[in-house]
């Protein structure tokens, strides 16, 4: 991976000036490269990873993994029906997978009722959807490569040769 992307994927707040110091490239060239990545869609968005379990004001949202079996359509294959499904804002993630089902969705809602309702009234009735299997998420341990629990690592001595 490009070094700029490696740095930003770990911390999106690092400034072009700082990246310049770390890589030895000029600030201008870093800014230009980032602009290009943003323009051609390599950098999709800068977002913050939040651990919902620790957000105090609001109860955690309900999330479900849904396995969807679908009947592909002539000419457009899976893409057409996938688009119809992932366009719902409730669907936060959608992938075509190999194996016993076709699409793997992650669906989010404020409560159990909202998610069930989405499956019953929006997803299952679609003509191309043959069947669904829903797994409600009970606890999330790791997301986007980050362990959500604050972990204590062994501490180095503060000084050594």
């Amino acid at each position, binding site marked *: 991976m490009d070094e700029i992307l490696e740095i930003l994927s770990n911390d999106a707040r690092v400034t072009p000036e700082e990246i310049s110091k770390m890589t030895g490239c000029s600030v201008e060239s870093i800014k230009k490269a980032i602009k290009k990545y943003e323009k051609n869609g390599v950098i999709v968005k800068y977002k913050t990873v939040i651990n919902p379990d620790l957000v105090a004001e609001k109860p955690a949202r309900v999330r479900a993994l849904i396995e969807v079996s679908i009947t592909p359509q002539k000419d457009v294959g899976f893409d057409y029906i996938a688009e119809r499904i992932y366009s719902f804002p409730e669907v936060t993630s959608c992938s075509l997978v190999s194996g016993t089902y076709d699409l793997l969705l992650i669906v989010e809602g404020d409560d159990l009722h909202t998610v069930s309702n989405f499956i019953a009234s929006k997803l299952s009735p679609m003509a191309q959807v043959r069947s669904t299997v829903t797994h409600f998420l009970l606890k999330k341990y790791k997301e986007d490569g980050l362990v959500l629990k604050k972990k204590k690592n*062994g501490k180095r*001595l*503060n*000084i050594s040769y």
Partner: protein
Amino acid sequence: MDYHISKKVEQMAPSGIRAFFDLVLGMKDVISLGVGEPDFVSPWHIREKAIYSLEQGFTSYTSNKGMPQLRKQIAGFLKARYGLRYDPEEEILITVGVSEGLDLAMRALLNPGDKVLIPEPVYVSYIPTVEMAGGKVTVLKTDISNGFKLTPDQIDKAAAHGAKMLVLNYPCNPTGVSYTKKELTAIAKIVKKHELILVSDEVYDELTYDFAHTPFASLKGMKDHVVYLNGFSKSYAMTGFRVGWACGPRKAIAAMTKIHQYTILCAPINGQMAAQEALKNGNPQVQAMKREYNRRRKYIIGALNDIGLSCHLPEGAFYAFPCIKAANMSSMDFASQLLQKKKVALIPGVAFGSECDDYVRISYASSYENLKEAIARIQSFMANQK
């Protein structure tokens, strides 16, 4: 009872900065740039292998030389990586880190009075281990004028009065300096000329940033001259596992193994099993850590020069060795005052040689945030000196 300590030990120079170390260890909320080990935890697959080995009941001694599979893997790695050929049966010994390998080499190869050439700035254990083995140290001074590098001429002159051994450490702790193949080849000629034994500590080999690392033993005609020391501590972030290796001519390794079997017996088995996993699957993480160190290196060297502590660009390891002349005080005063006033810890240059008092060692094996904060504090400390 009045203990009569061994004269040899009593004569060893006491570490002048022990008190400073105690001061650092007793203080809270210090940003430490004084640590000589990676800030990364060992990669999980390596730790997991160590846990698995315990679950499987691997709690025994191993062969004195180290587990055969690990020696074979090291031989395979050295051949693939550097074209170096060592027989895993007779030319490789698994040690408790490079520290043990160094001590074994000195005790196995030196007779009382043998002269050993050691460049300065020098890692703290070299001179004591030579002296404990009865050797006589000749220090070869290097400074910023020659980029802290030994010159072939310097070695030639010093060896002319008779010397048995030269100790090299590259990339170097504390300066971060390393040598290109061309520079090493020039040194090799002198090693050949004077028939020197070369003890080469290359534990930071994977952390070489600006050119490919060349093991001294891989240079033409040098394999028989070299005791090659390396280990897992720095490249795989495995300091606590205590596993290193020594490669060399059959006779040297046999002699070192003799001492090792009576004093150490073997390196810890779980460390040896973790090391096998490291060699097998660890390279992607080694490269990722190296890229991260390299970014910090560029940042810290630029930042130090910007705040008036002039510093050469080190080619390897994770140390910067800036000059503190601008602060107009000894390295010990600099380190102590910086610690007390700004809570930043680093190591005074005198720890690495009497003529290193204009320098301090800064370890950039620390997070970018820590480095940034430390630089801000050092800058404010420097401003108050004026």
